């Protein structure tokens, strides 16, 4: 939008009597001037010309800094917020080097296919549309056979994604002999996407890449680009397994941006009930769309995206039955690629004015400039928030981002602490490349790619001192190989380990989830059979069980049959006024106690646990009102998973005392209160941990035991939801003090009388109506106080 119309709209928006009372905070991020640097003196004249033709006669400071670091031969990571000219950070030094060395090659990795297609267009511009002798090819699942050969043999820059590298390129490296022999650079863009399980896999794919490159005698340098996160250097180092230095200063100019914190009105302060995030976000988005403002709305889950999109379309349809000038589309994972491409095109060419998206669009897909972003609920990480809000106003000028807080403790905590929000990013992205599931998967792939020599390791972990790390890596690799030998899939002979099975291991290993098997969703409406999406098996058990309502592209389907054995789910289209939500029961068994921390009276244990989850029944919730209109049974086998957990033991010392715990065990009413206190405490810690951990609350599981069968004391379990763990439990152990302090603060600030969705929840009200909420709240507060004192010395 133009500057004046934007200012007018925002002024009217903020002073609207319906909106103003809900605005908790307005942060005006001023425009910032660029910090310039001269073009590098050694830059090829052709590149210089190419830049000039795009009106570029100088660089931003961070672009110049990356150029000189790359040219010095360093591995580096550049922090590049949206629209800061990040592509030149790597394109310039890489293309320059490729011009100097005619045989040199580079590999560009993007987390998604769509991004690589954008990138190829961008590179063509840098490479002067083919005038320079630098051929660029995209090599992914969509590349036709005829182009694959050319990409391998003549591609100077090959653009791909980690999945393709994993299952297409590395297992066939001999066909890429020219490429690998001359591989000088690897560019890893959108690095912040490589966290959690995906990042843990990608770290191992890079280990394999380095191993294959070394086989052909090359040692490529790495350039990482990342959104703003708390630990770019650390994450890059963990991904690469060698030290990577970071450029965190950014020299790009920035348009003025308004970030508004919007807290939906409190309907009942005592019970802490607020108007729903979904309907409030819908209301704001509709208002913007009707004012002619292109708007993107981000929601937390696929289901919410579909719900909110349908609400918006409904709201607009009432007023615009005759003209469909405002078109709004849902956009999320699980759509077919062609559906997604069509939406991206619509956004760019202006035929779609609004989009409701999961975080799939937060990555840098170029959808053209949008004017406003509405973020329905804190997206789980600050990096995501900034990426999402950055979608508004990519082309500069004034832009607006509205965070609509949910009643979740995390949102309420953040909305009350703008200084924390707008201060330095503190959250850290974590991966665990040594997750045994992930590591074993990639040992198989690596053994398939090249036989292991005696004493050879897949990679050294960068967190240890060089000598020690190599020894440890070698012994872990040897252990893994020994294990695979017993399984009969590698053979040890003549001082080497050879892959000795008929399969093609990477085919069965998905980088995106811990389990490779997906359930295919088939629409059988009218006797047909059309694949409309897929879902990983554990999620399928909780989302598309028999009689569940599945929403796809605004259409409702009911599940006829989820067939886990055949990995298929048959649905038919059906108009219903409700959606479904599974009630999941969780059992935990402690497998190992690897590390114990004892601070004053409070202990924690880090270890492996077996988590057994079972969806037993489901609720039917009416659209709009979200009221519960019935239950149904689910009969599916339980899902079992081994993972890492941090277990807080609250049996002794001041924490135990404040919980009213005594070794002998208490009587009826007291134990109900203790259960409520423990669960409130666990819930709040669980919900606030993502403020520090850079993960989604859904990446963490929780459970509380008043008298834990393993430890014999009250215990709170917080565990990683991915098999084998992704480092969250270890991360939480270091940040426990902060999380406890934040939890105590949130609870103390909460207006409710005896628990509400914004603090310790109200679950206990269901279980025992006897329990007095205000007493529970008081005890949880005391418990946090005690824990905080106990953990005061840590972190």
């Amino acid at each position, binding site marked *: 939008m133009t500057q004046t119309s934007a200012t007018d709209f925002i002024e009217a928006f903020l002073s609207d009597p319906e909106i103003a009372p809900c605005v908790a905070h307005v942060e005006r991020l001023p425009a910032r001037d660029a910090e310039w640097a001269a073009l590098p003196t050694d830059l090829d004249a052709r590149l210089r010309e190419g830049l000039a033709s795009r009106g570029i006669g100088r660089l931003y400071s961070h672009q110049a800094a990356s150029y000189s670091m790359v040219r010095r031969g360093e591995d580096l990571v550049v922090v590049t917020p949206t629209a800061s000219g990040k592509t030149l950070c790597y394109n310039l030094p890489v293309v320059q080097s490729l011009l100097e060395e005619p045989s040199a090659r580079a590999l560009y990795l993007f987390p998604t296919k769509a991004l690589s297609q954008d990138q190829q267009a961008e590179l063509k511009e840098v490479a002067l549309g083919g005038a320079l002798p630098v051929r660029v090819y995209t090599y992914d699942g969509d590349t036709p056979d005829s182009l694959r050969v050319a990409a391998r043999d003549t591609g100077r820059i090959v653009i791909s994604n980690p999945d393709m590298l994993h299952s297409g390129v590395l297992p066939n490296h001999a066909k890429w002999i020219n490429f690998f022999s001359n591989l000088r650079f690897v560019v890893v863009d959108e690095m912040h996407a490589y966290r959690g399980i995906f990042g843990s896999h990608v770290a191992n794919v890079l280990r394999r890449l380095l191993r294959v490159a070394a086989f052909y005698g090359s040692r490529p340098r790495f350039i990482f680009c990342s959104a703003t996160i708390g630990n770019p250097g650390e994450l890059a180092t963990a991904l690469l397994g060698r030290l990577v230095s970071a450029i965190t200063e950014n020299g790009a100019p920035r348009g003025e941006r308004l970030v508004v914190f919007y807290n939906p009105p409190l309907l009942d302060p005592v019970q802490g009930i607020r108007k729903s995030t979904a309907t409030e976000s819908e209301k704001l988005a509709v208002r913007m769309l009707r004012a002619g403002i292109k708007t993107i709305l981000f929601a937390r889950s696929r289901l919410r995206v579909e719900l909110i999109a349908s609400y918006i379309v409904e709201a607009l349809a009432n007023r615009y039955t005759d003209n469909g000038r405002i078109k709004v589309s849902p956009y999320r994972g699980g759509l077919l690629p062609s559906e997604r491409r069509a939406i991206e095109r619509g956004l760019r060419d202006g035929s779609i004015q609004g989009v409701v998206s999961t975080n799939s669009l937060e990555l840098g897909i170029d959808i053209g400039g949008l004017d406003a972003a509405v973020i329905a609920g804190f997206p789980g990480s600050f990096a995501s928030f900034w990426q999402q809000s950055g979608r508004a106003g990519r082309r500069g000028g004034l832009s607006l981002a509205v965070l609509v807080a949910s009643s979740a403790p995390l949102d309420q905590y953040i909305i009350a602490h703008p200084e924390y929000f707008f201060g330095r990013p503190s959250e850290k992205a974590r991966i665990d490349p040594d997750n*045994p599931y992930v590591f074993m998967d990639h040992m198989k792939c690596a053994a398939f790619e090249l036989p292991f020599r005696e004493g050879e390791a897949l990679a050294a972990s960068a967190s240890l001192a060089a000598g020690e790390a190599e020894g440890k890596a070698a012994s872990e690799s040897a252990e893994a190989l020994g294990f695979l030998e017993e399984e009969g899939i590698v053979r040890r002979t003549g001082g080497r380990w050879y892959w000795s099975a008929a399969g093609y291991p990477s085919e069965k290993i998905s980088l995106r989830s811990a389990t490779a098997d997906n359930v295919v969703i088939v629409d059988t409406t009218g006797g047909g059979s059309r694949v409309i999406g897929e879902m990983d098996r554990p999620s399928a058990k909780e989302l598309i069980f028999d009689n569940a309502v599945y929403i796809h592209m605004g259409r409702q389907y009911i599940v006829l049959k989820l067939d886990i054995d055949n990995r298929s789910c048959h649905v038919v289209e059906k108009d219903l006024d409700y959606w479904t939500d599974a009630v999941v029961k969780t059992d935990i068994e402690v497998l190992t106690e690897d590390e114990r921390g004892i601070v004053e009276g409070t202990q924690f244990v880090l270890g492996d646990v077996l988590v057994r989850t079972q969806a037993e029944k489901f609720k039917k919730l009416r659209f709009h009102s979200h009221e519960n209109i019935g239950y149904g049974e689910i009969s599916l086998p339980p899902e079992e998973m081994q993972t890492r957990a941090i277990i807080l033991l609250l049996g002794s010392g001041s924490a135990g005392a404040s919980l009213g715990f005594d070794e002998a065990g208490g009587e009826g009413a007291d134990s109900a209160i203790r259960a409520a206190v423990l669960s409130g405490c666990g819930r709040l810690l669980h919900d606030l941990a993502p403020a520090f951990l850079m993960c989604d609350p859904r990446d963490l599981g929780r459970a509380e035991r008043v008298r834990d069968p393993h430890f014999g004391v009250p215990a709170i379990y917080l565990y990683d939801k991915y098999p*084998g763990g992704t480092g969250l439990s270890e991360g939480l152990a270091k940040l426990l003090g902060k999380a406890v302090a934040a939890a105590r603060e949130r609870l103390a600030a909460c207006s409710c009388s005896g628990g509400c969705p914004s603090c310790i929840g109200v679950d206990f009200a269901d279980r025992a109506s006897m329990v007095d909420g205000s007493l529970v709240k008081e005890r949880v507060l005391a418990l946090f106080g005690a824990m905080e004192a106990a953990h005061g010395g840590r972190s």
Partner: protein
Amino acid sequence: MAGDLRKRLERLRKLARAEEDARSLGLSRASELPEPVPLEGPAPASGDRGLGRREGGPEFLKGWDKLGDLVWSRSLRFKDYLGEEIDPLPFNAIGRRRPGQASGLAGPVPTGRLRFFDLETTGLSGGSGTVAFLAAIGSREEGDFVVRQYFLEDYPGEAGFVRELLSALEGRTVVTYNGRSFDLPLLRTRCVMNGLIPPRAEDIDCLFAARRLWKSVHGGASLGLLEREVLGIEREEDVPGSMIPDIWFSYIKAGDSPLMDVVMSHNADDVVALARLLARAALVFEAPLSWLASASLDRAGLGRTLLALGRQEEAEELLEAALGDGHEGAGLVLSRHYRRRGREADRRRVLGMLPESPRSWIERSKFLEHVERDNASALALAELALASAWTRRLEEALRLRVERLRRKLGMT
């Protein structure tokens, strides 16, 4: 990472086993691990597994000579069916060209230069972890067809094994069945993995010609099928290809594998069959009109191949004959051929002979629009075809055609 990797792996394995067991109660899925090979024939005497290996090899290596460390070889003699020369053009005019390969062979090749080549491997999907452990190379020698086989006894001998193959193939014309997609790329990969220079040999891949000549008649074009149906050879004993990797794995792990000798004869039989199939196909290409009235091969496929070779008259005769017997594909090829030659009268005649079908409607619609200028009839046929379009892409193309015709007719 905290925790003892070994112990964690043990636990994972237990969990995986339990899942596997649970699954096998329901739907059975192919296990990732090699299954033990069923024992047929005499079981090895207990106690001397592995021992035999050190002492000159297991039973199945009797009659084989040791060429080097872990590499064995033998020669078998068969009857020779090949003539003195072969014309490679009909085989190479169609089908997949090897990446980076020049147009290939020009004139006739003396059959003495041919090396019939087939690999047995540890997997069918290729990739750097798939190894060839058995190779057969057939050639004409002193009036016989001689098959020399090479056997890799275990992984560490691979470089030597590959070197033997390279020296046997170097500078010759390599004849394969699907070798352009499988055996030759795999051989190149094995060279790279062992630091050897990949061979530079001309080649003939018989698969493409065989497909055109026989696939539609026999419902397939696997070498085994054509060997039986076209050459009339029944093998006494054979193994399904899918079992072959596990037979070798079972040998390297257990020291013997009772079915290995069957795999070895399978491999030799394959190149014998390949040579005879090449000879048979060459015969067809030499005198194609002898098959004018025959139903034992696909005259349309043969006609198309001859068209590609510029042997127009023979091609037309075969295609017309096939069309006369109601072969739709032949008619469509002819129609396009006549269009390119501007022979519209012939095209009209051919289209009149085509049976009613979506494909013929499309072809007739084009003819009506561009030659007869009868847009209304063209539209009717295009709409008919659109209603039964069988792919998304075709549907799209037909939709455009219908729209254009409607515009021409002023119907929009």
